[in-house]
């Protein structure tokens, strides 16, 4: 029985490898969202500004928009943030979904880094994120004028993703 003890590490390793293998299959970058091509899930969330009002998908219809799930505590959001600022300058409409975050924190964050968002909705408990299938912030959805999800970017929006995946959709949908 003394020998069993020595096999513990290799068993742990096997479990970890299994986990990583699953992790690779689950990879957020590789799995297309099942929501692509479907209507954006319903939600009603309070807006950051003006306080007391709320945002629903109806308000997004009529023109293509980017819906960006972000949070003040999220490092990846910091990475994509300059690009979002640039895009908003170019007139791209971006809706911020502040995921699992406190309004005070995000207000400070936006003040500090700049605000690229037309509107910011507060998804404090992350329910809308769950409905939208958010794996982890940042994630960005491209919505067509009729409110269908055209594309989902997982992780920071990169200049390449913008050029290759997102911009053509916005141009086509307009």
């Amino acid at each position: 029985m003394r020998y069993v003890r020595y096999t513990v590490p290799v068993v742990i390793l096997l479990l970890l490898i299994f986990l990583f293998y699953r992790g690779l299959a689950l990879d957020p970058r590789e799995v297309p969202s099942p929501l692509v091509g479907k209507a954006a899930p319903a939600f009603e969330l309070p807006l950051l500004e003006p306080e007391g009002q709320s945002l629903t998908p109806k308000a997004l219809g009529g023109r293509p928009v980017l819906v960006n799930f972000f949070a003040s505590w999220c490092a990846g959001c910091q990475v994509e943030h300059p690009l979002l600022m640039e895009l908003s300058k170019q007139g791209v409409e971006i809706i911020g979904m502040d995921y699992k975050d406190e309004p005070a924190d995000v207000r400070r964050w936006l003040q500090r880094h700049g605000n690229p968002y037309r509107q910011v909705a507060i998804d404090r408990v992350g329910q809308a994120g769950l409905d939208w299938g958010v794996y982890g912030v940042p994630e960005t959805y491209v919505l067509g004028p009729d409110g269908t999800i055209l594309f989902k970017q997982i992780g920071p929006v990169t200049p390449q993703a913008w050029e290759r995946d997102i911009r053509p959709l916005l141009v086509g949908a307009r």
Partner: protein
Amino acid sequence: MIPELGHFALWLALAVGLVQAIVPTVGYARRNLRWMSIAGAASQVQFLLVVVSYLCLSEAFRQNDFSVAYVAANSHSALPLIYRLSAVWGAHEGSLLLWLLMLSGWAFAVSIFNRRLPADISSLVLAALGAVSVGFLLFMLLTSNPFDRAFPIPLEGRDLNPLLQDPGLIIHPPMLYMGYVGFSVAFAFAIAALVTGRMDSAWARWARPWTTTAWLFLTMGITLGSWWAYNELGWGGWWFWDPVENASFMPWLVGTALIHSLAVTEKRGLLQSWTLLLSIVAFSLSLLGTFLVRSGVLVSVHAFATDPARGVFILAFLGVVVGGGLLLYAIRAPKLVRQGEMQLASREGLLLFNNVFLVVTAAMVLFGTLFPLLMDALDLGKYSVGPPYFNRMFFLLMAPLAVLVGFAGVVSWKRANLVESFKPLRLLALVAVVLGIALPFVTQGQGSVAASAGAVLAVWVLVTSVQEVWRRVRAKPSLAAGLRSVPRGAWGMTLAHIGLGVWTMGVAFASTFNVEKDVRLGSGQSADIGRYEFRFDGVTHVEGPNFKSDTGHVVVSYRGREIATLNPEKRLYPSQGSVMTEAAVDHNPLRDLYVAMGEPIDKNDANGDWALRLYYKPMMRLVWFGGVLMFFGGILAATDRRYRLAQRASASIPDGAAAA
């Protein structure tokens, strides 16, 4: 032509690696000394080939040869030469080449410095390193060849990620990789011990300097990484518990445990199987780090370098190398164990506790890092684990460790009377408590439980470390004789422990008394933090070699006297369309003043008001200075004279080295 030469050198290195892995192993099985001795020559040839390959890639960067896809993706003709050369490891393929260069470099060093070791050990160590290099070479050649040509040839490169265009990033990855890869030597020594059945004090003496050397590089690598993040990411933080940071921190923790358990194995011949396990685990965690960074399983700041397809290969590689090592361990380790007597009331007993805390901390970091992935894989929902978890756990586990450091110095090996041993420390404990509690009030003019707790621990570690050397010195007739009598290894240990104390002090103060202010300032306006006044004198537009910069001018005064002019920058790199924040810092040992540019309030008017971030961070430098002290402590310890003597003494080939 040059890229093809580099590519060809890699294939040759693969062939040599196979020879290096197989021939000595067969030689060992057949007791053929000549076959075994091929290992040394093979590792030297392989190193040469990898150097050639590495130089070829550097040359392609130097020439701006954009026909090479990797160069085109990571360089630009306007990029300064120094960054073109460091761009070699700016992305995946080149990082692997650097990894490989270091791996073969370590093997080369082993072949040179360990010539006097018993032939079976040294050739098996090199064979194990050769096997690891084969895996890496296959990975490069099959999935990530840095020499692939692009067609049509782009006229201009896509430029190095601006995040990486920083002096800190020139040396941070090589240092970190030296550490990661260096643990492969400890791993290879463990494999050799398991195969030969030779695991004793002599073995520990051979493995120790290698392990310490790997550890000191890793220490420096992590320290530099933290310093870089602080300057370059522009939000004033120095450690984020980001998955990739964690990936480098876990091998560090286990490596630190290994250094201490090796000491026990060398001095007392105990904890052998534990030491072997740690040697395997430290390297496994280094490989895991590579897997986490390169596979995209976890999303992090560093995620610009991810590619899931390659993850499968690394995972398989991880399975073979680590699985093989652990399987060998499961089969052979039980036979190696001698039932030595271990008293908990002894230095080895305290070192065992040290190991427990370090390994549990590493496990805690691993758990926190993988928890979101685990829950997701089991379909239990989406979670994120943030700094609050890590910080709390880390403090709970590290505080006892800091207490232990002080005790371990006075407790003797084998068996000790703890109560008697601790007596000389009573005064020091009092000093630590009084000084620790007082320090926040004296230096910051305010109290804080967290800062005081940290300061008490820090002072405790500092005074006990110094007193340990002092006791040795005092035992000698004169100061000079006393100082000479302290072995270099002990100086190294003391310096590293002082580093720990300094680091603890820095962390306690920088995280508790950190003041952060987001302000909107127009030219000529100013904002205060305590007695520091920050006056904003507007921005000037500066053209860099490959970027445009809005450089801010901030004059800092202390009690009305000007003490510094800071020039934080907002840089636009047009080739990648990205904006970078270059923070400006004025620092002395007691405090950092940190200014980072936010955004102009009116987007189109850079001369109008700006959002600025101002930080006051007391004792921030100590965090990195502590790491630097540990680094130098490591250098002293690794170059202790007795390691060189130990090699000469054991230059014979033991017969019957193959214990069944």
